[in-house]
């Protein structure tokens, strides 16, 4: 034993580095070992000890494993910054990889793979080749992972040297650890590749199912996850698979249980026998419930998964509602999830018990939890018609306790119940109105109480913004229904208040819309304002069926915790691009990355945030311009909506300009008070970026740039903060902002509109519109085999075929055109001659696996191109044609 390691952290007054250098070169082994430990200690606390590189590497040639490991640890850390010196270590690595001691062989291969220096990579191949066939399983399992490391550095090299084949051979290895690592490595390589590399055949399936029983718990997870991609041929095979996997449900490791559940759920889809399915449901229930006995962190993951599972198969846990009752000491994040599941499992049979619980929760301390419990009662009322009355009784009881936020929430909930069951429970309005006056916060004074409107209007200017909005709408409604003198006076007061005396842009905008509507066409106003509200139905936060399908296929992954499809949050960038970002990051943290900024840009999935754009709007200094004429023309209205001065209207479809190398201007300097922004979406290495150029034509430097995107069809949003340095007057700065998709999606028909807000520390917020060209979504894995193409084409109904002519386009150089299209992930499949015409077939894929099959007909060198497409998603066709047009014109 060598005394306390912490002594290595102590520093001497004398120069530390020279002293260490001396010790590293000491003739005594122990002294050298101690010195290396000191170096590592300094490294872990962030000191720069890279200058000792040569001295440390000199200690590498030792038989002492403890010392060797320390040196290797140092090497991994500094090889990147000292690539030339790292070459010095190569000889020892190669030698070590042939050492008689298997631990040293494995260590050498493991460490070499972690050193991401190109020059080292070349030397790695031979030792790796040997180690993949080593006699010792420890070496083989390390080598298997090393293939994945190498693939990450240089995929081509891995394929050229045949490492993928060796890796596949390891699936049949007799050591389960080796099999598990080979599977894990292959699965990851497959994920980052567009070609089929690791496809599970029925043969591999049976091999892996056998290995499953002997693997370590972690290996079982790797294997189960890889196998879950396997599609059984028929019900019989599915049943066989399930039978082999079911014993895993008994495992003490929660990850194994959840991965097994995923696999069983997937195969169940194929099983036709209801008996078998019922039996499986029965078998899955106890292990799922047992997950709730684990640590709260695991419980949370389990609950998020169970939430999905009960949406598909409510029977599994129909009798277990009690286990989802909240425990007193559950963390809040667990309680919230339990509530969700209780609502989903609530039925006419257990509703009394459930209501009793909710009522109890509604008197607890945590405000958010209490609010959610009250809402839960309302949702049960909407879900279970027969229980609605009991729910309302409970809500009224809660209102009587007269706790502020309970009353607020209860009234909001009752409003929805009114809409769900019209003309049934209105008799309780009187009771509600009594309670309203006891509130000291006015939030829930919703438009129920029309008759009380006038008294509320007296305090109009003092009310919070959303109450003002509700009052405004309510008054307009009242006026339209009862256009008599009283309401007319009221509305004038309100409109005047809301347009002139307010500084809230939302309120002002809405007031102006009403004003203009009322003054131009009261009948149209009626249609708009008094339109039927959509019927409230029991949502129980149900997910869209296709999304649910996708999430269920992703049980036991992060996707199932966030309830978002993987592409919405997985942003693995190739390591090469990451490195630069990495370094930028360090310098960036100091200034603009204030905590507030992090908190607000972190629209993290679990907090279901749809707010980034709203946040940006709030941040906008509200332009107080009371001078708007009431009968202003329509464009002005739009200007108001976007929150701009009427002199600074952004033309709506401005950036339709050709997409040549210079980026299209999206915010002209004349609009941006001297700031000009050019921008365009681009796709690089599988990732979508927003390429931006800021030109500063003002007199002062601009900094603190931030960006937000409004909801859009594809849910495009920034994957990280905008990183733009200070822009000096007369200069410009460009940046590539990585984007994520499906983050905050807008509803309605697909649209190419992308609304962007950009802000800096010196100017107001600028809003501009950009156009989303669909081709940035064309994914790298869009290539289809010919047979697959034909089959897909046939399987799609003719109604999904859409044709368009492009009379102005000429295809002159076929080769070049195909290359260009391929570069944009529009893949050429085949070509045939038809009379004098050439017919080309292409395939394209956009996220969520939506394919486009394209038939392009043209006469080379003659103007006129006809394109016919088939896709399961015909509503995106217009966007697709636009994108192809751009690509062909290039």
């Amino acid at each position: 034993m060598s005394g306390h390691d912490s002594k290595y952290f102590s520093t001497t007054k004398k120069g530390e580095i020279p002293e260490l250098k001396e010790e590293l070169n000491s003739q005594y082994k122990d002294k050298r070992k101690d010195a290396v430990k000191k170096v590592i200690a300094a490294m872990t606390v962030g000191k720069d000890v890279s200058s000792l590189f040569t001295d440390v590497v000199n200690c590498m040639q030792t038989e002492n494993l403890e010392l060797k490991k320390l040196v290797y640890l140092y090497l991994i850390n500094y090889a990147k910054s000292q690539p030339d010196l790292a070459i010095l270590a190569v000889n020892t690595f190669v030698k070590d990889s042939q050492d008689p001691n298997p631990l040293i062989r494995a260590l050498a291969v493991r460490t070499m793979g972690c050193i991401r220096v190109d020059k080292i990579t070349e030397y790695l191949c031979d030792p790796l080749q040997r180690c993949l066939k080593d006699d010792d399983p420890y070496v083989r399992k390390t080598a298997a992972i090393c293939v994945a490391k190498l693939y990450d550095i240089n995929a081509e090299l891995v394929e050229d040297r045949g490492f993928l084949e060796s890796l596949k051979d390891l699936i049949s290895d007799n050591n389960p650890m080796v099999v598990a690592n080979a599977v894990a490595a292959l699965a990851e390589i497959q994920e980052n590749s567009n070609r089929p590399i690791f496809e599970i055949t029925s043969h591999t399936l049976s091999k892996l199912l056998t290995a499953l029983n002997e693997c370590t718990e972690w290996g079982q997870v790797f294997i189960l996850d890889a196998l879950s991609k396997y599609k059984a041929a028929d019900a019989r095979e599915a049943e066989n698979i399930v039978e082999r996997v079911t014993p895993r449900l008994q495992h003490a490791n929660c990850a194994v249980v959840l991965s097994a559940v995923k696999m069983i759920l997937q195969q169940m889809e194929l099983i036709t026998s209801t008996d078998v399915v019922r039996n499986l449901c029965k078998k899955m229930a106890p292990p799922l419930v047992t997950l709730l006995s684990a640590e709260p962190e695991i419980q949370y993951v389990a609950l998020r998964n169970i939430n999905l599972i009960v949406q598909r198969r409510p029977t599994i846990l129909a009798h277990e509602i009690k286990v989802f009752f909240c425990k007193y000491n559950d963390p809040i994040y667990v309680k919230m999830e339990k509530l969700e599941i209780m609502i989903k499992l609530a039925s006419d049979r257990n509703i009394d018990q459930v209501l009793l619980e909710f009522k109890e929760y509604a008197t607890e301390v945590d405000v958010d939890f209490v609010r959610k419990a009250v809402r839960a009662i309302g949702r049960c009322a909407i879900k279970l018609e027969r229980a609605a009355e009991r729910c309302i009784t409970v809500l009224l009881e809660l209102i009587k306790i007269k706790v502020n936020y309970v009353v607020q929430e209860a009234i909001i909930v009752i409003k929805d119940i009114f809409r769900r069951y019209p003309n049934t429970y209105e008799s309780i309005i009187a009771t509600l109105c009594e309670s309203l006056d006891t509130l000291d916060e006015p939030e829930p004074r919703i438009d129920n109480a029309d008759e009380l409107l006038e008294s509320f209007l007296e305090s109009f200017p003092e009310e919070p913004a959303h109450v003002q909005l509700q009052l405004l709408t309510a008054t307009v409604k009242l006026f339209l229904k009862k256009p008599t003198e009283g309401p007319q006076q009221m509305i004038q007061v309100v409109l005047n208040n809301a347009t002139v005396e307010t500084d809230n842009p939302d309120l002002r905008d809405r007031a102006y819309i009403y004003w203009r509507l009322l003054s131009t066409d009261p009948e149209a106003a009626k249609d708009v304002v008094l339109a039927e509200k959509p019927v409230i139905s029991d949502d129980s936060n149900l997910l869209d069926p296709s999304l649910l399908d996708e999430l269920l296929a992703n049980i036991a992954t992060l996707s199932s915790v966030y309830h978002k499809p993987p592409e919405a949050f997985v942003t693995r960038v190739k390591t090469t691009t990451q490195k630069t970002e990495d370094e930028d990051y360090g310098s960036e943290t100091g200034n603009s990355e204030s905590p507030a900024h992090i908190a607000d840009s972190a629209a993290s999935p679990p907090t279901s945030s749809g707010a980034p754009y709203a946040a940006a709007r709030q941040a906008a200094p509200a332009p107080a311009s009371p001078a708007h004429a009431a009968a202003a023309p329509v464009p002005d209205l739009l200007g108001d909506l976007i929150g701009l001065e009427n002199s600074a209207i952004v033309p709506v479809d401005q950036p339709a300009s050709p997409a040549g190398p210079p980026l299209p201007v999206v915010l002209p300097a004349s609009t941006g008070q001297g700031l000009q922004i050019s921008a365009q979406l681009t796709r690089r290495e599988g990732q979508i970026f927003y390429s931006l150029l800021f030109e500063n034509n003002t007199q002062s430097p601009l900094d603190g740039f931030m960006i937000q995107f409004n909801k859009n069809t594809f849910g495009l949003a920034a994957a990280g903060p905008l990183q733009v340095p200070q822009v000096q007057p007369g200069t410009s700065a460009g940046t590539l902002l990585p984007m994520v998709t499906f983050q905050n999606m807008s509803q309605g028909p697909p649209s190419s509109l992308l609304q962007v807000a950009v802000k800096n520390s010196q100017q107001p917020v600028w809003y501009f519109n950009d156009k989303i060209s669909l081709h940035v979504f064309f994914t790298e894995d869009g290539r289809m085999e010919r047979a697959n193409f034909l089959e897909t084409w046939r399987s799609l109904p003719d109604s999904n075929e859409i044709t368009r002519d492009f009379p102005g386009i000429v295809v002159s150089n076929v080769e070049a055109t195909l290359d260009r299209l391929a570069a944009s992930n529009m893949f050429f499949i085949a070509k045939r001659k038809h009379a004098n015409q050439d017919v080309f077939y292409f395939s394209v894929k956009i996220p969520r696996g939506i394919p486009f099959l394209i038939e392009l007909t043209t006469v080379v060198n003659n103007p006129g191109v006809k394109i016919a497409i088939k896709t399961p998603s015909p509503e995106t066709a217009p966007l697709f044609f636009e994108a192809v047009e751009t690509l062909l014109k290039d």
Partner: protein
Amino acid sequence: MISQFFVLSQRGDNIVFRDYRGEVPKGSAEIFFRKVKFWKEDGQEEAPPVFNVDGVNYFHVKVVGLLFVATTRANVSPSLVLELLQRIARVIKDYVGVLNEDSIRKNFVLVYELLDEVIDFGFVQTTSTELLKSYIFNEPIILDSARLSSIGPTGLFMQGTKRMPGTAVTKSVVASEPGGRKREEIFVDIIEKISVTFSSSGYILTSEIDGTIQMKSYLTGNPEIRLALNEDLSIGRGGGSAYDYRSSFGSGAVILDDCNFHESVRLDNFEVDKTLTLVPPDGEFPVMNYRMTQEFKPPFRINALIEEAGALKAEVILKIFAEFPSNITSNTIAVQMPLPKYTIRASFELEPGAVGQTTDFKEANKRLEWGLKKIVGGSEHTLRARLTFSPEAHGNITKESGPVSMTFTIPMYNSSRLQVKYLQIAKKSGTYNPYRWVRYVTLANSYVARI
């Protein structure tokens, strides 16, 4: 696969930091800590264990006040990562004996060595202390036992009871004893966490036992072990609802809803004679986890009452009945009850001759707290509290106070009646007779009485 692993102290200091893939920016630990600390503006709400900031997914678990964190950019299995974080904590504890900031800092070289074997390129390799022993060369540096603080449920055995050797559970699995020889011993702990909710009229609304048979072996040569459980033990309640109670108090078989076993356990004879056979790996591990909703006798009954007593005054009476045998003593009992928001004062009256009891009114969150050092089986304890309210309007005092919650530990007692009938160690020689410790403990999980 994970990208980084790190351990942060409560203050957010980096104690351990290991980057396996270099694909997540270096500032991740800071971003994580800030996010967790200020999850909600008021700092009251706890961050969920999994969240995403700027495309980086963060996982964390809290172990003895330390934050064990992993990051990744991929769509990994979250239960795998969270479970892994717990296991890393356990492996480190197995090696260094006791887990805290100090012991990790003192053993940082060992911890990094462990981390390199446990995870390679973000893929878990093994978390078995037993397997790791062949690849780890650093010796642990053991903290002074005098400064040890007890950790986890098994730490409870150190309190006072002479039958159990205090330092055993915090002993490193790999380090040799100062005398040079290891003491041959094995610990089997049956730990049960019970959750009970009583209705306002004293009926049991829900009850549940989460149990673990935990083992920690210090036997050399890893001999085979047989553990025999109750012969009448059965698993699975068949069909039907979770709450069809089929047996009454104190009689009939022990019926577990569900259970699972450590991978080293062989169940060849389990169906026949309810014995588990295993070769215990080194280190602490759960042999079996079980869950039971079969009706059982709760160790404590709680009786709580709150009544108006004149203008702006009320009286609270709390009574606790210990319903376990008198040769058993429960310790560190704490009873809590939220009081109405407008409570401004509380005065307490304990029963005459009460020893080792404390009372408190927490002004900030309006909570009554009653602590008892120990309660002997069969006894009964009462607390009276007089409350004074502020003159402002107030509502229903019963609705706005409670529920009463209770925490306690009861050594050498378990509610499920699950037992280890015998613990057999395959003998190496006639004289081989290692120490065997079979210990029971019952803990309160969520023990609540509504008013």
